[in-house]
């Protein structure tokens, strides 16, 4: 455990060496929530959809928190890889899985803070009341989501060669995963071809799991399947990332 804590502390120190970046990671979802939550509410409310959009969108924003934090953290991972410190860390006296868990610990803790700020901002400004009983499950699914995304991006960082390839791939993935999902709008209302892609997107699964707690009135017919799929996604991404770390990294 001491190694896992030391690795988490190391990532904390590195990210906090420029506090603007972590602050940005937390503020962006809050700004999304406040701007889209209030403006789209008027538009959708005027259209008579019956959707409580700020409450609906909060689940998406919470999903965005872990996804966004991991997306930015993965750049730090890639820089470590390019710089040489990553290879040196591979000679330190801990197992590869401990390295992954240590890095996850920092990102997961950061996600929980980000989610807490979003829930608080939603309550203070948009009057979205999330029951205290939901706080723990929200934190739990945020941590699980952070794990899945972190391991996926770790695997990408270890597999792709060169900054351009990495930047292009992750940026494209970021857009596709965020927008071909139910994060901003109900997946049921997407065009049929895109709708199926959205249902296969882990962002959709995570968002529905969080939305279950932030918007109990939401229609979530596939939630048990999404839960199973999302847990499987996390296990598979951990397995591939750990396998990659244990294998040859050239």
């Amino acid at each position, binding site marked *: 455990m001491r190694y896992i804590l030391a690795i988490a502390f190391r990532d904390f120190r590195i990210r906090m060496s420029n506090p603007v970046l972590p602050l940005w990671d937390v503020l962006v979802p809050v700004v999304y929530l406040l701007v889209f939550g209030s403006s789209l509410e008027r538009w959708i409310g005027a259209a008579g959809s019956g959707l409580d959009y700020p409450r609906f969108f909060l689940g998406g924003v919470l999903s965005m928190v872990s996804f966004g934090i991991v997306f930015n953290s993965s750049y730090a991972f890639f820089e470590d890889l390019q710089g040489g410190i990553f290879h040196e860390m591979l000679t330190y006296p*801990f197992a590869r899985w401990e390295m992954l868990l240590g890095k996850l610990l920092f990102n997961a803790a950061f996600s929980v803070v980000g989610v807490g700020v979003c829930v608080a901002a939603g309550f203070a400004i948009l009057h979205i009341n999330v029951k205290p009983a939901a706080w723990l499950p929200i934190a739990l699914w945020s941590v699980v989501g952070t794990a899945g995304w972190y391991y996926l991006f770790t695997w990408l960082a270890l597999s792709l060669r060169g900054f351009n390839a990495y930047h292009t791939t992750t940026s494209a993935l970021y857009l596709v995963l965020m927008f071909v999902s139910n994060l901003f709008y109900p997946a049921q209302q997407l065009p049929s071809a895109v709708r199926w892609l959205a249902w296969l997107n882990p962002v959709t699964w995570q968002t529905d799991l969080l939305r279950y707690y932030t918007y109990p009135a939401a229609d979530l017919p596939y939630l048990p399947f999404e839960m199973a799929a999302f847990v499987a996604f996390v296990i598979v991404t951990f397995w591939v990332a750990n396998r990659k770390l244990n294998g040859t990294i050239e």
Partner: protein
Amino acid sequence: MSQEIVQVEQLRHVYRKGKVAVDGITFGVRQGEIFGLLGPNGAGKTTTVRMLTTILRPTAGRAIVAGHDVAHEPLEVRRKIVAVLQENAVETLLSTVDNLLLYGYLHGYSRAETRKRVDRVIAALGLEEHVDARAQTLSGGYKRRLQVAKALMIDAPVIFLDEATTGMDPLIKRRVVELIREEAERGRTVVLTTQLLDEAEELCQRMVLMKEGKILSAGTMTELRQRAHKAFRLFVRFQQDTPDAAAMLKALAPRSLKTDHGAYEITVEGSEDRWIREMARISERHPLEHLEIRAADLEQIFFELYGDIASEANAN
């Protein structure tokens, strides 16, 4: 004879694109020894160290470090080693002292123990000057010093140093060499890669010379000299330095000939007896004031084995 703490047998590594970086090398390192892996860029030194430190998995062959197989017991190996791999392998966003503190924590030391060790290595390597400066602002030589300090903080029995003294100023380099020797005297084993021949000659008890993934020669300096095609350096001064005397030396077709204010240094091959006879013959016409025959140094052995590459290595 001390027990071998690092055993390498037919070790091979092929990169994904098919490049053979290390091609079936075999050697052993004894406990408490300073052992050198020498060779020019692309010789396979770094790949060898990366396999021995469990970063890379061997494609074939076997390597045992401190009693553990690098391929099958990598974690046990990592608990017995400390590795300083590259100058740039520092936490660029953190200060010198924070780099060292973090290194201690990541090796399982408590806060108090780490602090004690950090203070010790800062003093030992004279790092006080930029102790609070971010590593990204430090010079290459200072970063190297920081890297060596990290290695000296940890009590692992085997130390791997990859080009440890490159870019250091001579006074600091001298101090680092002394510290490495002290560690070896305490029973720690040091495996270092270098292109600096004088450093290897000064530090290493034994060494292997690598080229294109293979070992060209291995052993102590004495053993290497014996295998280096009997290369000698002759230091000659005539009682009267004349063009004819110089011409006679040139006529011997030495591999190299340097002259400096009437003093000649020539590098030749063959038996020592033969060169004594040749110099006696020249001395009949041009009496000698001074004659000294020295066995090959590492630079000459390198030259012997690598040709022009040796001079490039020294230039680096």
